Each structure stands twice: as structure tokens, then as C-alpha cells.
């Protein structure tokens, strides 16, 4: 029985709740125990360059308060949080002064950084921990096996390659294997590693939308029927804002987008409601007939 500490990140808690709802439903099926931590805080990704010490403290606080000796690791649902946590571990390991600095603030709360938790990405969870064979087993046919699905890892899951991650940064394949194990086709496409633009929503929304437009329109021209991602920010740009993005450039929404957990949940036989599919704003109705088990 695998036990993981769940870390949603602020954006999922407050906006992209489908990320949280779908993974809770799906992991119940796979018998993965998720521990909900008592105290969480923002990881500090957005303002890490503005207040670097503050940001590092925030991430350090997470590493300390989310650590659970009986848990196999921290499941970080957001790519930004996933990077912050791993990078903080890397930095604090290399730099004793920074470590001591963070610890001095943590001690005020009775927290400390003694052990290093493993940080787990949802793709890693499904591919490495649950395993491809198990996923192959849940896919019992009924879908249209010619459905071609585009994978979108997001920028911070695998880059920068100086911080070890779960797959090859310029040529990842784990999400593809998951898609294929579920019974669908996938293929490489030039825009695969392109950025959704989410980070710029804060300071430069029009540039963010332009990047999202390039990503969506570029991907759509290859004939994909669906795009899947795990990150709430990528989902915000590619799904929630697809209509606004496309209209800004005189185009229309054309690419159904789902979370990986929603796709897996539908394969298991979970209802659309339990994976919060009603919160998807991209044209997912178009692709449902092809991916649902009969």
C-alpha cells in the first residue's frame, strides 16, 4: 500500500480544483493512500526572483511540514511546486549557509529539515509507482484505438536538467507510454516541448495568451483529438482560457484538453462528475465518444 503526502499548491486549491478532485478519485481506485497535510503554504514560485529568501523559506517550510516518515514522498500536483521543492532540496544540500538560514526561521515554529522527502510527479506516480502493466490492465477496450492524443509535460516537470527529474528533458517518453498503455495512440510533434505561457499571466497577460495561442493552434494542426497535461497552470491556459486565447487571434476553440487523471479516471469507469469534467472549458464533448469505455 503506497502512501503519499498530497501537496496541491495554491492554484489548485483555489482555482483548478479538477486537478485535486480527479486525482483523489483515481487514486482511491489504485489503493494509494493520500495524506492531507495539516498546514500548507504557497511554494513561492511566482515571486522567487522578487524575494528570494522569502521564497526559499516558504519552500523549506513545505519540505519540513510535509515530511512524513511513513510516507513514500510528497506528491506535487503543480509543475511549479514540483520544481520549487526539488530545487530547494538541491540548493539546501549544496549550500550549508542557506540551509542554516532557512532552519533558523523554521525553528521558531518547531519545524526542522532533517530528512529529505522524495518529491513525486503525477506522471512518475502512474508510470513508475503504479506501473504500465497495471494501467494496461484497466483499459478493457471500447475506446477508439485510433484516437491520437498529444502529451504536454509542461516546462517545469523536466527542466532545467541540472535538477534531476523523472524523464529525459528533451525527449521524454513516460507520458506517452501511459497513453499507449491506456489503449490510445500518441506521436511526437514539434510543439511538444513548447511553453503554455502561464507564468506570464501575472505580469504580461497578452504575451501569455500569444504563447498559448501558438501552442494550441500549432498542436491542433497535427490532427490530435485531445491534449493531456497534469499541471494546473498549463490547464488554465490550454483549457480554461482556450476560448479567449483563440478568439484573441481570430480563431475558435478547436482542441479538447483534459487532465491525465481525468483521462485515466474515465478509463477506469469513473463518472464525468467524479473527475470534474464539467469544469473543462475546452470542447471536450467532441472527444468523449472516442475515449469512453462502452
Amino acid at each position, binding site marked *: 500500500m503506497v502512501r503519499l503526502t498530497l501537496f496541491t499548491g495554491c492554484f489548485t486549491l483555489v482555482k483548478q480544483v479538477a486537478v485535486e478532485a480527479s486525482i483523489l478519485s483515481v487514486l482511491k481506485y489504485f489503493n494509494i493512500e493520500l495524506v492531507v497535510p495539516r498546514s500548507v503554504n504557497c511554494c513561492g514560485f511566482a515571486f522567487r526572483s522578487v*524575494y528570494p529568501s522569502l521564497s526559499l523559506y516558504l519552500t523549506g517550510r513545505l519540505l519540513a511540514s510535509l515530511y512524513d516518515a511513513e510516507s513514500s514522498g510528497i506528491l506535487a500536483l503543480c509543475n511549479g511546486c514540483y520544481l520549487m521543492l526539488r530545487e530547494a532540496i538541491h540548493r539546501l544540500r549544496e549550500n550549508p549557509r542557506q540551509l542554516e538560514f532557512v532552519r533558523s526561521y523554521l525553528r521558531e515554529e518547531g519545524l526542522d529539515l532533517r530528512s529529505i522527502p522524495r518529491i513525486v510527479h503525477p506522471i512518475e506516480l502512474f508510470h513508475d509507482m503504479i506501473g504500465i502493466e497495471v494501467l494496461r490492465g484497466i483499459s478493457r477496450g471500447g475506446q477508439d484505438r485510433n484516437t491520437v492524443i498529444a502529451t504536454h509535460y509542461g516546462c517545469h516537470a523536466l527542466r532545467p536538467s541540472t535538477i534531476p527529474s523523472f524523464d529525459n528533458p528533451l525527449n521524454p517518453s513516460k507520458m506517452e507510454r501511459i497513453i499507449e498503455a491506456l489503449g490510445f495512440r500518441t506521436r511526437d510533434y514539434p510543439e511538444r516541448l513548447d511553453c503554455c505561457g502561464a507564468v506570464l499571466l501575472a505580469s504580461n497577460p497578452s504575451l501569455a495568451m500569444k504563447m498559448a495561442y501558438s501552442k494550441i493552434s500549432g498542436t491542433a494542426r497535427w490532427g490530435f483529438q485531445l491534449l493531456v497535461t497534469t499541471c494546473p497552470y498549463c490547464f488554465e491556459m490550454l483549457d480554461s482560457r482556450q476560448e479567449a486565447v483563440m478568439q484573441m487571434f481570430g480563431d475558435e476553440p478547436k482542441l479538447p484538453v483534459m487532465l491525465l487523471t481525468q483521462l485515466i479516471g474515465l478509463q477506469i469507469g469513473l463518472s464525468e462528475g467524479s473527475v470534474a469534467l464539467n469544469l473543462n472549458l475546452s470542447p471536450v464533448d467532441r472527444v468523449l465518444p472516442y475515449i469512453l469505455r462502452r
Partner: protein
Amino acid sequence: MAAETISWISVETVRACYTCFKCIGVCPAGLKPNLFVKAYIGSMFREFREVYEEVIKDSSIWMCARCLKCVEVCPQKVSLNDVIEYLQHEATKRGLVPQVYLTMVENTMNSYLAFASQTIVSRDGDIYMTEDVRSLLGLDPLPEPQNIEKFRERLRLLKEAG
């Protein structure tokens, strides 16, 4: 104390830039990462200090989407992301930072989270607030911010530290 403890830049790798322009061709925001690098490297020479200051004051450093593609393709493994963040921090110290980031820090100081409760729209066009959607989906409500005063004070000190 904090400013020296938080230093990202591995100076050795930054100086290795040999201006091949590969980073510019891959940048989705149309930025010139190696301009930032050369400005940083040049900042130690008096002839380049003025340009360096201009670069810090220019809004383009805040246009980086942190996609990290430039870092991945750089043949000299220059940590371009670190350089851009350093310049952003320098800009912050000069009082030039987009308000939205300051707001996010304020939110965090008041609730542990960078975002406040907001509207969520469903595909059918229904409008909800965060709390409603969470409860409809059977999720726990947003956590109550406990012991927030001490946390806020800690963050205030950290803000001053830099």
C-alpha cells in the same frame, strides 16, 4: 544577512557564454537571453555599467516565461534562468517590480496562499465561487489560516532581508 546567503549565479558557467545566439532562436517570448548574460558579465567594467542599468530598468526582463528552453539548448550550459532572476531581483531592489507579485506576497502573508477565493465557471456557463465548487466536489474546504500573525511577521522580516 540574507542577500549574500541567497545567491544563484554560478559565475563560472555564466562567463562561458560565447554569444552563439542559440538561446534567442528558441525563446518563445522573443527575448534575447544572451543580451542579459553579456550585460551581467559586462557590468563589472565601467564602460558597460550604463547599459547594464538600462537592461535592469527595461520591462523586457519581466517578459520571461521561465520556459527554460534556452537553458536546455545552451551549448555552454549557462544558467540563463539564474541570470534573468538575478536581474529581476536587482530591478526589485531599485523599486521596479510588477505590482502583481507584491500582491501575491501580501496574500500569502494573510492566508498562507498566494491567491484568494475566486470565481470558477463551468462548461455549462454556471458561475461559482471556490468554496462552492470545492464543497460540490466533496473536497475539503480551504484551510483556515492558523497562527497567521507569527507567519506574517516572519515573512515581513524575510522581505526586508531580500
